[in-house]
């Protein structure tokens, strides 16, 4: 870059034009295979999903044009609407609560002369790396009639509250939600703790001299420095709520009834068990639009405050 600015003479510029063309060709050579894979296995199917969403199709016979009927179904069909609504409610468990809990923990562990809790942070991160299927299986048994949750309730004399949680029309959804908190809190803490490390220690010392307690230090020093990290953590976890599949599929399959149905599971059911491919595609398109909206809104919020 700097060398381009250093020789602004016309002949050099012409030479640069030619060499930049050549360099473009070279760059395209490097990009050919990566972009081919991306286009064929990601971009193309995504466009096909949009295409399929405007048809009725059972996966075998002829496609019937459907106009926007599949999208109307997403808005009007109770099952599909419930799934979308649940994905927003799941954000409380996958995004809002983990961010708040992790922020509180960050407040406790940051500041001068405080231990960094590396081992504990590494442990809290573990759910991020486990196979979601295994997480679903483990929690299925935690909530089982003879599982740990009910056992613990009996220990503390609350045996009357014990129940088969995942079979409950009221509680199954919240049971899944708790797993969301379990999975994503450690990720949020990793974001915030690494962000907090960049805060100059003098700021804490200055706040201390001003007589600010821990809570004040957190509010006035740590929190403002974590703006970027909070936006990113919220974005990543909100997307994980919207596209949740494995854990819900294994734990409840969306049930009982549709009480814990989420778009991911419903896309699979509509697409591969009841073969309403058009409807499944419309739901998938709405889902990816929601992801885009979340990303744009969070980015905007982050920029506005910056």
């Amino acid at each position, binding site marked *: 870059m700097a060398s381009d600015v250093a020789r602004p003479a016309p002949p050099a510029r012409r030479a640069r034009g030619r060499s*930049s063309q050549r*360099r*473009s060709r*070279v*760059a395209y050579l*490097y*990009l050919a295979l*990566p*972009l081919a*894979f*991306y286009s*064929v*296995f*990601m*971009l193309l199917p*995504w466009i096909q*999903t949009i295409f*399929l969403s405007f048809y009725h199709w059972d996966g075998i016979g002829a496609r019937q044009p459907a106009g926007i009927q599949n999208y109307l179904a997403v808005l009007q069909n109770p099952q599909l609407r419930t799934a979308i609504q649940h994905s927003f409610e799941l954000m409380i468990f996958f995004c809002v609560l983990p961010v708040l809990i992790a922020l509180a*923990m960050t407040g*406790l*562990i940051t500041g001068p002369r405080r231990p960094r809790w590396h081992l*504990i942070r590494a*442990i*809290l*991160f*573990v*759910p991020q*790396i*486990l*196979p*979601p*299927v*295994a997480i679903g*299986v*483990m929690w*299925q*048994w*935690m909530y089982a009639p*003879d*599982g*740990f949750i009910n056992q613990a309730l009996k220990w503390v004399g609350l045996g009357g509250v014990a129940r088969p949680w995942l079979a409950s029309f009221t509680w199954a959804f919240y049971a899944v939600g708790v797993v969301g908190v*379990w999975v994503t809190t*450690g*990720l949020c803490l*990793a974001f915030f703790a690494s962000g907090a490390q960049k805060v100059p220690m003098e700021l804490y010392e200055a706040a201390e001299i001003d007589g600010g*307690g821990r809570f004040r230090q957190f509010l006035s020093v740590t929190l403002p420095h974590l703006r970027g*990290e909070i936006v*990113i953590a919220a*974005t990543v976890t909100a997307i994980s709520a919207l596209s949740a*599949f*494995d854990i819900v*599929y294994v734990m409840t399959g969306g049930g009982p009834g549709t009480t814990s149905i989420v778009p*991911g599971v419903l896309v*699979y059911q509509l*697409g*591969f068990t009841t073969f309403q*491919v058009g409807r*499944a595609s419309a739901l*998938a398109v709405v889902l*990816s639009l929601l992801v885009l909206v979340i990303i744009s809104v969070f980015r905007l919020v982050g920029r506005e405050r910056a």
Partner: protein
Amino acid sequence: MNQLGGRFATRTVMLLAAAGVLLPLLVIVLTSLQPPGTLTTGLSWPSHPNWHNYRDAWSAAGFSKLMRASGLVAAGVVPFGLVFATLAGYAFGIMDFRFKPLIFTVLMSGLAVPYEAIVIPLYYDLKNAGLANTYFAVILPLVGAFMPFGAFWMRNHFAGVPAALTEAARIDGASSWTILWRILLPSARPAIATLAVLYFMWTWNQFLLVLIMIQDPAHQTAPLGLALFVGQYTTNLPLLSAGTVIVIAPVVIVYVLFQRQFTVGLTQGALKE
């Protein structure tokens, strides 16, 4: 006093949180050591550990086959994914070319596409191509799906290399390939290692794609095998728990060895967007 109280509160909160995270793991490990046929999954210490549950689970669920399938898929995805990520990252990080911002934006938009939004057409496309029920039906889409993150990750690494280094080599007449191979790659090892660890984990844990693309039990991977195993043997919980531990073990081992790569990769990869 206040200081002491604060320290005590911090310690309590952190230890309780860690205990909460470890609890389901502890429950499953303990259950996996109970006598076969045990029907509870609460917290109780086995009177004497039944290690043979692991051997039984291994043969009952056919883990030899499942692990081999998972290994083969990972062996396909990780090397190809890394090579392509490096090539694309090199182009985006070091080179100037026409339509660079546009191409980069299109590629990065893939970060926002959930698997749910591509699996339906992908299934029909791959079936028509005769690839359904083969490892390729999982390997190829995963290599494509990992491209946005991988290219982004490697671009950030290469863009951080001082321009003087590559400029000097170019003036000396080094080809773009020599620059990549001789000058950039040696120092890119840590970045590539982090990406490798993440790719391995994402491949190993992948469920939805395998569920849809591979219905033939002979080609299924470990997480899928676990889900089926749990469906079949609902009554023998120690056996199922042992199976779950077996599926978890490889990623946990990789995590223990490369813990920093995981946290750095997953946080930095998202932060620099």
